């Protein structure tokens, strides 16, 4: 197995990536909003699932 190659370049910002990929500023803002909302929804769902699992554990204990 070969050794991993070290990536040492700084993380690009969303704006740098959007510019490179030819995505407009307006569209980039829409994508940011969509991604942030999607992540927030997922995190809420995960929190709710954790809470349910905790309740179940307490009930059975």
């Amino acid at each position, binding site marked *: *197995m*070969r050794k*991993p*190659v*070290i*990536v*040492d*370049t*700084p*993380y*690009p*910002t*969303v704006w740098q*990536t*959007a510019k*490179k*990929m*030819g*995505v407009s500023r307006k*569209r*980039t803002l*829409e*994508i*940011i909003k*969509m*991604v*942030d909302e*999607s*992540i927030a929804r*997922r995190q809420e769902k995960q929190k709710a699932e954790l809470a349910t699992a905790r309740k179940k554990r307490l009930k059975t204990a």
Partner: protein
Amino acid sequence: MPGAKRDSAFLNIPYDRDYENHFLAYIAGVAAFGLDPRATLELTSGERRLDRIFKLISACKYSFHDLSFVKLDRKSPATPRFNMPFELGLVVGWQNAVPSGHDWFVFESSRHRLQKSLSDLNGTDPFVYGPDPNGILREIRNALARHDLQPTAAPMGDIFENLKEDAASWILKKTGASSVFEARAFAELVVAARRSAQVLVPGLRKS
């Protein structure tokens, strides 16, 4: 490597509907490491295609070559797609003739398949990811490392899930693209993956 973008990685992968999740996994995995994926999907007409492909590859510091789809297609006459091994050959030839620090990685879904399909690469360890696209994330973690922020399985999986469950369908709807293998959809997926990485990779959370 004059002109090569140190934050760009060329994806040499099949553009096939059965491969959509694999494609999203590569975008997510590469983005988690702070690299922007590039692909021949971006190429528009103009110069000879081969010249444009080479220009795109040589503008990237890294390349990922997935040879798992080198197989006969369903359409008659049944023909294997040679583009992926050909583009890998371009990189290997280029790096042997004019070494410039470009790092290339061969990915396969099955162990020992490469020895059979491309024995000229004996001595090169492929990154074998198995049947599940999540294996691609694991193998990208085996291929790459960062000293500052090493992305772990959880955020990489979350970036992939975000692309797969939400971003891809939203982008297809908004752009009117019929698949993720269209230039505009690809460009927007890359931006979505970059934003996801910015939010989900611990230590990167700033605006």
